[in-house]
């Protein structure tokens, strides 16, 4: 029971989506749409699962007074606070005439988005700029033929996508040599390499999907390889 039903669900869902690509006629066309509806709803619940789980873990940390409990408290407060603001804005916006959205400029929720969420998330990722620079200074070596080729291609693309080298050679020629070359690398060798990778990945996905649909692969339902 615990194993068979999930396997059956997996197989049916997989077959419906695979077959409806070839057979638009009902029942496949319609069941595909119905399954699609369910999936969007399940995914929304999955996001809520994440939020609730985070709350649960944070409460556990606070109650056990573990070393970083004050940070867990910040998580709980900020999460609850944002939820409260969001619910308030969402429902009160619907009651207004004309209706407004919680994400319209000027709402409290939008303020949180612009002045709390945006700086935090954007800064978090912008730190990568520093790390990439430090890595290029300390680790990126032309240690073998492969790495050498990689660095040379990277060099031309980096220099050619901004008017860096072309400005340096502008006294000699007006033709944007480096920009043109960067473009060439992207259009031909890069396309070729990406394409080979893509085809390989497509076949890989094809085979793992096939195994999932046929029930040979079942790690997603907690079953071992069997």
């Amino acid at each position, binding site marked *: 029971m615990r194993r068979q039903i999930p396997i059956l669900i997996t197989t049916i869902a997989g077959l419906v*989506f695979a077959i409806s*690509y070839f057979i638009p006629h009902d029942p496949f*066309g319609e069941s595909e*749409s119905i399954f*699609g*509806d369910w*999936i*969007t*709803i399940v*995914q*929304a619940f999955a996001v809520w699962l994440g939020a609730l789980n985070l709350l649960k873990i944070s409460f556990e940390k606070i109650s056990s007074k573990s070393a970083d409990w004050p940070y867990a408290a910040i998580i709980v407060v900020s999460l609850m606070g944002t939820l409260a603001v969001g619910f308030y804005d969402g429902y009160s916006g*619907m009651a207004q005439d*004309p*209706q*407004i*959205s919680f*994400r*319209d*400029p000027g709402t409290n929720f*939008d303020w949180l*988005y*612009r002045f709390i*969420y*945006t700086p935090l*998330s*954007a800064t*978090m990722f*912008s730190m990568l*700029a*520093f790390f*990439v*620079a*430090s890595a*290029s*200074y*300390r*680790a*990126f*070596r*032309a*240690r073998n033929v492969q790495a050498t080729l990689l*660095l040379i291609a*990277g*060099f031309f693309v980096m*220099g050619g*996508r*901004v*008017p*860096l080298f072309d*400005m340096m050679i502008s006294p000699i020629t007006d033709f*944007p040599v480096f*920009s043109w070359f960067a*473009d060439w690398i*992207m*259009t031909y060798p*890069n*396309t070729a390499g*990406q*394409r080979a990778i*893509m085809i390989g990945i497509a076949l890989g996905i094809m085979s793992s999907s096939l195994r999932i649909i046929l029930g040979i692969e079942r790690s997603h339902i907690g079953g071992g390889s069997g």
Partner: protein
Amino acid sequence: MLSTIAMVLSLIVGLSLIYLLIRTIQGHPVERRIVFIYIGLAVVLPLLMNKTLPLPITKDVQKLYDQLEKLQPGSKVLCAFDYDPPSAPELQPMAVAFLKYAFKKDLKIIIMGLWPQGPQQAQQAIEEAMLDPIIAGKNLVQGEDWVNLGFQSGNEFVIQSMGTEFKRMFPKDNRHIAYGEIPLLQDVVNFSNVDFVINFSAGKPGTTEWVQFGVDRFGFEMVAGNTAVQAPMMYPYLRTGQLKGLLGGMSGAAEFEKILDEKGKASTFLLAQTFAHATVIIFIIIGNLAFFSSRKKKMAGTP
């Protein structure tokens, strides 16, 4: 004044790199925090200089522009915003430039997002586009000239389902108005009723999914603006025609602003971008010079 100081400073910083080179070759690489400072300066100083650089238009951007030019006034364009604030420096300028162009040309814009933050970024882009005096003079009406359908969960399943009916995935718009009551969407049932699709994408779900489950199934025409991390992977789609045009990263955004003649953020960022690239290139060179000289020493040292 400020820009002169910045220029002098960047000259000094540039010269100090020579010292860095010597130290590194001697086998004393500097700490990573010093590298961090260099990168910080490489971005801060050029922003203060407030200069724009000439940039040639690459053929991918030209191709995209030609596609947009073909659109007739009144054409309905589905605009998918699939990114979040961290990628906004690259994608927001593209979105703003596109919206300005589209509103001036009387294109009808249908906005949606597969990323929860997307529609909110779209609101900001619209807000900025509306500041343009020509667009402000048009008195555009939400629901008639543009509509924001909001976000729907389900990633690629949303695209798949929209192939049959948009309404199924977006029963109401952002403001909670029923799909059927929105004038702009009267004729729009699914992809076959929109004239064009443009996607601003920072990852998954994004352009790849739009190509796989949209273009290749329902046969609409699409162009995309991508973050630079993702752009190289899109070139195969560009060559097959699955994508009709591509804007890649900040340089793509700057070219786009240039070709549309809408000066925006990306153009002003270009100098900083150039300096940052130069710094990274110099760091790679310094590191490798040190690597080779130490290897030579090692070889000479072993009898």
